[in-house]
């Protein structure tokens, strides 16, 4: 690991060099008054001062629609690994934490080659948050800063950018940054100050307990009235699932080509809030009520998925679901805090 400093102009030259020489560079850029991850055409378009992107970078590690197999109709199937080398530029710490969780989930038990092959070809250049979004609560979730998973981490300290190189993939990219000099003590102190600040300011909604208490809190509140109170207004639209960086449920579908002879088996994003998510043959739905689906999402984030990944809470505090929810009920902090009011968690 090395930590370097570059001026903002030098950094822009670095981005231009990446775009010119690397096969594919994706970066955060403006779309209207909001931000998205998209193919980066020029260094000027990159907006590392963004607050939050509409969709998380999960769409690059697990695309909305991903081909798993190709086949001849009624015949044999072949594996498809269609991941390509990609540089993902501007991933915020909370989104990095989400990708770290997905890496663990897709590699544990049954190793998912589709996810992992795609993931290994992605180089992640993370960046610390400059402008907190209106609904971020990463400080509450312990994801305001991130310690691993990225190949390179950028921290804007005003006049210059501190560049931490974490992996070999990151080290190779440093060839495009000839002007970088080793970070001084002063630079490191400035970077620590940004981290210290972000631990507090990325907190527009304040969770009134440590995230590590959530599994215990939820264990005691399966029948709490809040599930019904909130879900009464739910449209079952699944927007909270779609924007969530840690949601990874999927459906598998066969798509036949126009030749009617060949096709592909694809996986597509799915959402546990959608009405038929838990329906089986014969139309029996195991989570027919909106409240049971609403509860399932918040239990997955706070209890079930943590049980699979060593207790890490599967909500990283990006706040996207709060912004996306038409009925204004998706805020996990509001729900968890309401549970806290009536629960002694010791």
């Amino acid at each position, binding site marked *: 690991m090395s930590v370097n400093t570059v001026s903002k102009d030098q950094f822009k030259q670095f981005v231009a060099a990446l775009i010119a020489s690397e096969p594919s560079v994706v970066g955060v850029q403006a779309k209207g008054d909001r931000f998205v991850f998209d193919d980066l055409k020029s260094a000027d378009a990159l907006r590392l001062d963004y607050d939050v992107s509409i969709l998380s970078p999960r769409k690059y590690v697990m695309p909305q629609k991903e081909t*798993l*197999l190709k*086949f*001849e*109709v*009624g*015949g*044999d*199937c*072949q*594996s498809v*690994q269609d*991941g390509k080398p990609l540089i993902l530029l501007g991933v915020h710490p909370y989104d990095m934490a989400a990708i770290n969780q997905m890496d663990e*989930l*897709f590699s544990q*038990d*049954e*190793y*998912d*080659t*589709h996810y*992992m*092959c795609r993931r*290994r*070809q992605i180089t992640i250049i993370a960046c610390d948050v400059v402008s907190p979004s209106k609904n971020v609560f990463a400080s509450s979730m312990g994801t305001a800063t991130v310690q691993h998973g990225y190949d390179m981490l950028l921290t804007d300290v005003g006049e210059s950018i501190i560049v931490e190189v974490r992996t070999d993939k990151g080290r190779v990219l440093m060839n495009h940054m000839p002007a970088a000099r080793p970070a001084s003590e002063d630079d490191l102190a400035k970077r620590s100050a940004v981290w210290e600040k972000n631990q507090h300011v990325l907190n527009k909604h304040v969770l009134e307990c440590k995230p590590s208490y959530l599994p215990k809190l939820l264990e005691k509140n*399966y029948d709490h009235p809040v599930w019904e109170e909130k879900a009464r207004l739910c449209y079952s639209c699944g927007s909270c699932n779609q924007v969530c960086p840690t949601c*990874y*449920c*999927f*459906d*598998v*579908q*066969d798509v*036949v080509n126009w030749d009617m002879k060949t*096709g592909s*088996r694809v*996986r597509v994003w*799915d959402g*546990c809030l959608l009405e038929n*998510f*838990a*329906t*089986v*043959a*014969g139309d*029996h739905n*195991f*989570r027919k009520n909106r409240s*049971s689906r609403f509860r*399932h999402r918040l*239990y*997955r984030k706070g*209890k*079930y998925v943590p*049980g699979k990944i060593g207790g890490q809470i599967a909500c990283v505090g990006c706040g996207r679901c709060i912004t996306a929810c038409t009925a204004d009920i998706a805020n996990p902090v509001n729900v968890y805090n309401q549970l806290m009011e009536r629960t002694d968690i010791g």
Partner: protein
Amino acid sequence: MCECCTQEKKDIYLPELATITKRRMLNGTELYMHLQLDSGLEMEYTPGQFVEVSLAGIGEAPISISSTPTQKGLELVIRNVGTLTRAIHKLDVGAKLGIRGPYGSTYPVEQAKGKDLVFVCGGIGLVPQRSFIRYVLDNRADYGKVTVLLGTKCYDMRLFREEIAMWMERKDMCVMETIDEAHDCWDGNVGVVTTLIPKIENELPNSLVMVCGPPVMYKFVLMSLAEADVPQGNIFVNLERRMKCGVGKCGHCQINQHYVCQDGPVFRYSDLADVPEAI
């Protein structure tokens, strides 16, 4: 090609081809199929497990294994209920299907050795239970008394009729059958499967009880078993969910913290009794 491909990790979603070697309709909606893997190998599985069955271009679905590993080939029973199963019903002997698996937990084949066993089967719940029943019959000396309770909605829906007739003739097992609705050709028990439970009341508390049937059946059967003082730890249920991936990723089969495709489909009832949404 990336590192993990060069390590030759298996693609967990890639089915292997199998050929339909026998097929016959068991009733108006249930198709029995005997399959042989094109690799020539026998699938290694244990009663209770399931496979993902696919027809390229139509889709994939989880299907219980009905055969026993003590015999060759793979037997499945598929109800004509959706797009995929409708297409499978049209296939003749010699046609090919994609198979992935086996997946999921198993019946307690080892733990059950030396114990008395009761199988409560409702409708197509017989299909996965048959795997364990046949396994027990092929290793008959290893197990105690075997009792099979069969409930079917109506006379015409009854499955594996000849095989059940053969079971009924055996001296080393007890088979009781009932149908929900009376029928001119039926002079046996009429009523739901729970009406058979009092008939074996004395044996139940010391038996391991395997239960499989439609969602609506569990509640009533489990209540009857509780009344008969069967400890929850002695009951095994085999649950149905829409396992899209079969490998604990897609989230469709999740019951609270349990993934039916990994922790199930066979659960010890005492592990689920306090889990809402399970049954």
